């Protein structure tokens, strides 16, 4: 993936939508492109994986402990692994690839530095988390 393609991907992620292109450019330099095969696990319950996975292509299923049915599906331009960024405890869910997936991965340490540098990312996180919480409540109702 060329740097411009990374910027294009990042610009479509709600988290970074408020950033300027120069800032996206900075983030693109620390975002690493990685591919996973169908069924690969990104992280398991109780595991410490300090990375944010931005889905470039493919789908990721999120599972609650020992359940076969996924509780959520994360698609293109969305991200997983954000909860352990704010809470250093291990993951409470598992994430598995459904089909071949491509990701941009940002380490939590880098992400913390980015939030410090660009507070707009923190606002983006809040918005996305609230929207997910709303979806969850609506689906329960």
């Amino acid at each position, binding site marked *: 993936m060329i740097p411009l393609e990374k*910027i294009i991907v990042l610009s479509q992620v709600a988290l970074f939508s408020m950033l300027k292109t120069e800032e996206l450019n900075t983030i693109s330099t620390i975002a690493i492109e990685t591919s996973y095969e169908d069924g690969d696990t990104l992280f398991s319950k109780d595991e410490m994986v300090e990375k944010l996975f931005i889905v470039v292509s493919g789908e990721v299923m999120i599972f609650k402990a020992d359940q076969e049915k996924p509780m959520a599906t994360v698609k293109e331009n969305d991200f997983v692994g954000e909860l352990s960024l704010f809470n250093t405890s291990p993951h409470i869910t598992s994430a598995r690839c459904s089909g071949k997936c491509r990701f941009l991965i940002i380490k939590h340490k880098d992400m913390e530095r980015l939030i410090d540098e660009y507070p707009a990312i923190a606002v983006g996180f809040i918005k996305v988390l609230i929207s997910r919480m709303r979806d969850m409540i609506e689906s329960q109702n």
Partner: protein
Amino acid sequence: MIARFLRNLLSIKPSEQQEVFYLFMTLLVFSIGASFARSISMTLLVENLGGEKLPLMFIFIDLSVMIGSIAYARYTKKFNGIHILGFFLVSTALFSVIAQLLCTLTTYWWSAQNWVYGFFFVGFFFFYILISIHTGSVVASYFTAVEARRVTPIINTGIPIGGALGGGILIVLLNVFHFHPQQLILVLALACLGAFWLARIINARFKPIRASNDAQSKDQAQKNPLHDLIVAFKNIISSKLMIYMSLGLMLFVIGSKLLEYHYQTIIYFQVFPDPTRRATFFATYEVFANLAWLFIQLFFTSRILVKWSVGASNVLYPVLSAIAALALFIYFYGQGLLANSVIVMLSLGIFTQFINQEMRGALRTPANNLLFNAISPNQWGNNKAFLNGIVFPLATLIAGTFLMTITGAESLIVQIDWGFSVEQLYYLLPLIALIVSILGIFIALPQWSQYEKDMQKRLEDEFVKKILGHQVNVKGGIKEIRRVIREKLNSSNTYDVIAALDMIRILKFDLFFNQVGNLLINKKTQYFKVKKHCLQTLAALSRSNSNLKNSHLNYLLEALRIEQDAPQVLSLIIKDLTKFKSVNFNHLIEKLLTHPLPSVCVEACLYLHQNPKYMHKQLIEKKIIASFDKAELSQNMPLYLYALGELRLSHYSDTVLPFLESDNPEVRLAALTAFIRLHEAELESQKARLLKVLESPDNEMKILALRALKNCKPLKYWAPVIQLLGTRDRRLIKESQELLQLNMGVCKSALIDALSSDKISVQQRFEIMLLIYHFLSNKQQQDLQKGADETLRKFVQVNGLLKFYESLGYDSKAAHILIKILQEMAEYHLDHILIVITFAAKEDRDFFQKVSNGLKSSNRANQGNALEVLSNLGKKSLVNRLLKFFDERFVTLQSVRRIYFALYGKPVKMDKNHYKAQLQALNNDMLNACLLYIRENI
């Protein structure tokens, strides 16, 4: 061509034409019906009830309007403005149908029921006044503050044109077709239904940009009318602008009534004693005055408002009123000179009436309505209702009572109660009107500045308001502060005590010295932070008052004795004792060299090393160096680095250097502090290393380096320091600014060069301007303006390319990035222009940020408020050109071409053959990468 001529003449932009046309037509159609109803209702009333009932009818109208205003205030928050107008129009139509029915019944069957004519008169004026109040809000809601200033007077021409047309048609219907007045009441219903149909079109086609009804207001609307009235009253007393508007309105009504009384009952009565001749004069006056009003409204009002600003325009009316009153006073007071000159008296009467009536409609009302721009739209209804429903009738009552009292009777023929003769009254009334008008001017001046302040306030973000809204208001003076400090110092809450100590230190209150000292040595005081603040406060007070030095020393020694078990406090006490070099406490401190806590040990070492009477300094140095071996991996490394630095011996530099590259930021920082301390006397030789630190990612290190650079000779290259002006850390910016300021003579040209570059950030540009603007010569300031003018051209061009590229409709992901880049470039250029405007107008950062955010906002109301604030700066060339740009609703490529031509007098080249080259010429790497990517992927 004719359309363009009219557009230019009437100051309407093509994008506004439709709204202006429909709103104009609505007013025109309603005014035709209103003109019919005004004449018919007056004729029928006087004919059937007699002229003597007029004052009573006016009281009924005022009372009904007062009640109606309360209901109006309530519903403006609940419903859209155009819906309320529709409701008023339909209600008026319904009312006129009922009135027509009642009049017909009275004419043919109920001959004794004359109250019907009073009912029609009062009812019509009730609706007429409410609609007149409300149309101003409806018009304002469809335009931004700046647009409204331009188009409102043009839309309002619908009123005199409709009035003249209605009057003309009425004359024809009465004299040619021989209708009776009571048969024509239905025309009002027809006109209202026509206006309602136009209002529905407006509602369907256009969206208001400043709504008076919002979610929050809907909640408020659930409360009762009395609550609304209280809210309105609170709004008015809490807003300086509204207070000025209320006072201005009262003075206007009083002055206007006095003048009206004068020309109607004194001048015209004397000039035209015969009622028929007087009526003919009134008819002739109406024709010419209405035409003159139309002419002024069309060609002057909007130009005055745009050129002079809203605030200044509002001063004009009381000035004109004062001139009229002064002229009347001079004429009637100095009767000897032009005694009984009918022509002069009549001219004065016409002049006064024209100012009092026509200029009120053509100038005062539109200018006064625009003052509401500075008030939140959801308060418009409440405030207008209060002004028109409470203040206006109250002022009428005051003026009426005053006139009744001063004249003493209904007729001027009898002697005045107060002992004034009729002749005295001739000049006394204008004199009082003159005083009232001058007071009006005095109110309009602060109102002007308050309007501009409130417009700026309108730009403030609610969030920011909440944060900055808490201002401390200290009342009661120094005594009260001392009482509070004493109270807090004795408090059991540690934070209260610390706050009191801070206040004593900052305010240098010597009288608390002993109290602070006692607090330090009190065994009950155990909290370290309190002790630390006590020590700091004692040191600060003894620094400012040398008489306290001995007491300070005594408190320190006593504290040293009792704090043996508190190592943190102990090290601070030793540090303070270091300042008393003339006294030898070496024996006491030597005992602490073996203290188990490293911080105490280090402070003891430093105390002894710095004491001139201590003989074993080398031993101390060895002790500190030895601690490095043990502390390699310990958390005390910063402490030992600090100790080494405080020795201030440059030959230990090699010991410190490796720690500058440490992975631990605390160690790196301590190493740099030590390095600077070691080389304190010869920092110039270490300049290269300090400059290198400026490139590190660690802001604390950069701050230290900048502070050290202040003690060096000026730099050759200032770019690394200028670069730091763009960081987010305010401390870093402050240090960089201080360094640049210190070397202004040398770095000024580098700063000016940086300003001419397009590579610096917006923040950097602002900070540089803060530093150098006042040092620039007139020519340099003009050059900056020229540079900003050139940036404006780039801004228009980038916006043009943006619109052009959007119009091509590429659906590529890179195309979206390209558009985003262009938007950011346009914003960058806009900020450049605004910074230059801000400094040229001697405004501050707050102004810049508000206007910048407002102009970039996608909300047109916000954008309009920002433009209004900008236009209040006065018509400076750059501001004017920027306003011209935003005057157009910049939505199509066509508008880009138009604005480019208007600004630069030549067409812009923007077509499929040129745009790529123009995009590339913008010289943006990422933009070029996008172009390449799109080309390869299509």
